[in-house]
């Protein structure tokens, strides 16, 4: 029931050699994988984008300098859009190309294409967009957006205002309890996928064909139909090998795809590559939403939570994009995995003049979990309790009702998760040892901190019902089973995990399963590749498709009830001989009893959660304020580990991203509201030299809704590192740091405040 794996030899061997090789491993290791920038077509054009410079305003005119031979170029503006000038998302408030009014710097206005990529820089400089600012100054901060007298970007500058309420905070306040109150902030975060975004468009036999770096082929497909006015069957979207995404390629690929499509349509169907450079990608594509949380916690003297009262606000940027769903996930996770009868979370997504913020691994949860987990440590300090004791006293157990009103089902045991984490890192001994060490007041201070949390897998609430995902299997004469899904591989190991699930369900070797290329002409819509839903939701659909395939082979091709791989293939050959290639598509089935009322945020928001306790150990240099993470423990209850290496890789990668979020990744905004440090030199993510040994341990109680009891794990590891690290720093220094990233500059200042 318990597996463990880590890069720490004290904990035994890694199961690397036992796990099947990644499906996409060889082509990536050998450099033969084809990314969009690797593709060339004869006569293809290269395109660039001219953008607005002011943080909102109107365009008075666009002029083109004479010295450029414009006849050699293809030039596209909003007037060339055959369909609707809006990017199809939750709403359609964002133009594909700006015509007159716009809301932020960096909005696309003109597209220019030429066969020679080196002819683009001069032409771009020869396009003059005459911009007029709005009367009121731009709005860049959450509090400014909420003030009544500032510039209005959307109605009241609030995209969504949600309330999750359980019991009555007001009543709980009347009874005697200890109250802790503070405000927490999290910064924006850039995905920094290795491969910048890019799309290639062309007309092929009257069909608009777009391929590129993306997470969600059918989102792009829908956006293309909307902007071009072409019918479904005349639009085709394919995924290329994708070099990382983390949510950053959920939505923005639709923009680039529309742009590339407009150019190819104007250029008579010639292939067009629109590939962003790193600087452009970082400046204009969405990032993690910055947030502000006001947290009030009421507790009895012995540390039982009496109320949790949170005011949570995220900066949505200049258009709505995905902010409503980021917000709802943030709300549901804001009160953590704790038992508390009185909970109130008010949550708003506000409009500012930044480029829109968007999906990023964790999707609102890392923000709200950071605030709560950091506040819990401060509450523990106030109550003179150990942080682990406070958590153990309140964490949800089977039979409890979660803050969103969901009943927790066994057999999962969060006490065991916490116990395992504390034991693995020798927590109690270290707490004591570091206390003594720090009493000497040397240059290096040491601290240890933890966070306990859970993360819901799949679309929030009734989202999966609305998606009605489909996925399937295809088998031909040779018995090779091909997975048909629009779920995309972007480095996370989805091909490997899903192949393992199908192989297991069919009782055939892993090598007998392959994954078809995501191509909207060939694969059904399995929903977007987001929200930790691949293994749990799509995996479950595929497991049922596998059952259907076996049933078909039994009925139509005499597959014996007990069979070896040879007999399986023979049966496939018979099936093929009788009826050709067989395709079996299965539909999503909603778990029974999972109702959700979005209007009051009560019910079952997710089919299952993964549960975790993370512990960080830090050393802070009091001379420079630099923090070094010396050890990290990540213990999680994930229901079931489907593929050991892929799962451990997800956790380690997420922890590293979380370390970056906590200590290094500081998106700086210029006066125009765009990211100013939009270069890898200046936007600092951790390198391997900054990463400690990461102990990854899994508990597998089979509680999840996925195949064999698996829950989703993709986003979980993003939630815990930031609060665990900040708690460790505050423990080391006695400071009250309440934001991430906590840079050396802030840490020294916090030490000053403490001494003052």
């Amino acid at each position: 029931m318990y597996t463990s794996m880590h890069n720490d030899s004290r904990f035994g061997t890694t199961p690397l050699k036992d796990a099947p090789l990644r499906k996409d491993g060889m082509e990536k290791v050998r450099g033969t994988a084809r990314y969009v920038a690797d593709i060339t077509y004869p006569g293809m054009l290269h395109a660039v984008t001219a953008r607005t410079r002011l943080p909102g305003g109107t365009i008075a005119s666009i002029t083109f300098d004479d010295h450029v031979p414009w006849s050699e170029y293809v030039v596209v503006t909003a007037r060339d859009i055959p369909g609707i000038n809006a990017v199809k998302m939750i709403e359609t408030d964002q133009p594909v190309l700006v015509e007159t009014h716009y809301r932020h710097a960096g909005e696309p206005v003109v597209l220019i294409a030429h066969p020679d990529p080196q002819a683009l820089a001069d032409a771009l400089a020869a396009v003059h967009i005459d911009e007029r600012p709005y009367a009121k100054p731009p709005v860049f901060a959450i509090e400014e957006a909420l003030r009544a007298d500032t510039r209005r970007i959307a109605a009241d500058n609030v995209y969504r205002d949600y309330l999750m309420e359980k019991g009555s905070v007001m009543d709980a306040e009347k009874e005697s309890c200890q109250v802790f109150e503070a405000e927490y902030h999290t910064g924006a975060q850039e995905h920094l996928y290795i491969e910048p975004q890019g799309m290639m468009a062309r007309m092929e036999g009257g069909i608009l064909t777009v391929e590129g770096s993306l997470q969600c082929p059918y989102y792009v497909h829908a956006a293309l139909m909307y902007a071009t006015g072409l019918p479904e069957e005349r639009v085709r979207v394919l995924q290329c090998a994708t070099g990382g995404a983390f949510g950053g390629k959920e939505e923005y690929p639709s923009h680039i795809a529309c742009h590339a499509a407009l150019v190819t349509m104007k250029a008579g169907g010639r292939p067009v590559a629109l590939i962003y450079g790193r600087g452009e990608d970082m400046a204009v594509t969405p990032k993690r939403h910055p947030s502000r949380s006001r947290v009030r916690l009421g507790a009895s003297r012995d540390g039982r939570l009496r109320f949790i009262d949170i005011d949570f606000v995220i900066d949505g940027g200049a258009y709505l994009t995905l902010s409503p769903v980021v917000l709802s996930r943030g709300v549901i996770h804001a009160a953590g995995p704790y038992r508390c009868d009185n909970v109130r979370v008010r949550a708003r997504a506000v409009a500012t003049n930044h480029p829109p913020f968007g999906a990023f691994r964790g999707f609102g949860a890392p923000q709200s979990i950071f605030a709560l987990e950091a506040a819990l440590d401060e509450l523990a300090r106030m109550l003179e309790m150990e942080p682990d004791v406070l958590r153990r006293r309140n964490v949800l157990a089977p039979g409890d009702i979660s803050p969103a009103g969901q009943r927790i089902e066994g057999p999962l045991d969060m006490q065991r998760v916490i116990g395992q984490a504390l034991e693995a890192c020798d927590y109690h001994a270290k707490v004591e040892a570091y206390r003594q060490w720090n009493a000497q007041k040397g240059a290096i201070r040491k601290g240890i901190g933890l966070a306990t949390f859970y993360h819901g897998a799949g679309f929030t609430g009734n989202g999966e019902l609305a998606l009605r995902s489909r996925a399937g299997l295809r088998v031909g004469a040779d018995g090779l089973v091909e997975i048909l899904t629009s779920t995309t591989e972007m480095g996370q190991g989805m091909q490997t995990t899903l192949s393992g699930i199908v192989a297991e369900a069919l009782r055939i070797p892993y090598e007998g399963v392959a994954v078809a290329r995501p191509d909207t002409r060939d694969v059904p819509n399995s929903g977007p590749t987001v929200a930790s839903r691949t293994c749990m939701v799509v995996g479950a659909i595929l497991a049922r498709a596998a059952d259907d395939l076996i049933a078909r082979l039994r009925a139509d091709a005499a597959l014996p009830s007990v069979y070896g791989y040879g007999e399986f293939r023979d049966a496939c050959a018979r099936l093929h001989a009788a009826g050709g290639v067989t395709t079996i598509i299965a539909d999503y089935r909603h778990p029974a009893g999972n109702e959700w009322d979005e209007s009051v945020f009560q019910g079952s928001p997710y089919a299952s959660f993964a549960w975790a306790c993370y512990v960080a150990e830090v050393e802070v240099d009091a001379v420079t304020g630099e923090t070094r993470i010396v050890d990290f423990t990540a213990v999680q209850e994930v229901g079931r580990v489907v593929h050991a290496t892929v799962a451990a890789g997800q956790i380690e990668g997420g922890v590293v991203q979380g370390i970056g979020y906590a200590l290094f990744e500081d998106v700086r905004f210029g006066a125009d509201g765009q990211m100013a440090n939009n270069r890898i030199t200046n936007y600092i993510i951790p390198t391997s030299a900054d990463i400690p040994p990461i102990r990854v341990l899994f508990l597998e109680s089979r509680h999840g809704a996925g195949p064999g009891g698996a829950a989703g794990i993709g986003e979980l590891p993003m939630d815990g590192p930031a609060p665990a690290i900040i708690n460790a720093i505050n423990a080391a220094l006695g400071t009250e740091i309440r934001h991430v990233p906590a840079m050396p500059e802030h840490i020294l200042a916090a030490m000053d405040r403490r001494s003052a």
Partner: protein
Amino acid sequence: MRWYAPRKLHEALALLTERPDLIPIAGGTDIMVGRDPRACGHDYLSLANVAALRGIRETPAGVAIGALATMTEIGRHPIVCRALPALAASARATGAFAIQNRATLGGNIMNASPAADNAPVLLAYGASVSLMSVARLRHVPYENFHSGYKVTVRRPEEILGEIFVPYAPLGARHYFRKVGTRRAQAISKVGLAALLVGRPGAWERVRFGFSSVAATPILACALAATITGTARGLPDDEGLAEALGRDLAARDDIRSTAEYRRRIALNLVREALAPWRHQGGCDAGQ
């Protein structure tokens, strides 16, 4: 774009005299970062094949380092490691392994970034550089090499030939510390190298070289004067801070704040002086 790659130094010098617009390129680790792939390229003079610019030579007075010597070569060189440990340390703190295999010392100082990691050490050790052209060879003390933000005294027809680093007296304290944005592959927020010989009241040499606290790498002369001018012990923190205030022109930028830089500069100076801080200086009085 044209690419010239002569093998002989005189050919390279002749080419540059004829075409002073050519951009010399050594490891390319600065130049390539700045290139815009959407614009037409420049013409380059690759120095990579010019053997005369390679190598690290030991001389009786110091170590002569060819402009093309890489960070890896410098960081591992036995004489450098033994006699000039601060330079070995700064070479190993430049970028990370892959960059160190290509990045040259000549390129590091010719790029003339105020954040160049090896500049403080060269200032502290009192290095000099040779600049060569068809017409002549001249030697310039490194402390006079940077004439402004990203500007050096090199003339367009000149090639940087060698960096000469004199040995330090026996018993010297060689100090180097880089405070970057992370542990590797980082541009420094503050870099400090110090060469300290003697003791409070009887200093023989006090040289502090800084990066990232002004428009160029700087030799902190006011700081040195304050330390050598203190008859007994060391100046107190206020005295050090006041002197640093005259040397530093720290600014807020994308990587850090002026305040943090000033403060870290002081903390690093204190750390460099640590061996003496508890002997007869202000600390002893506490």
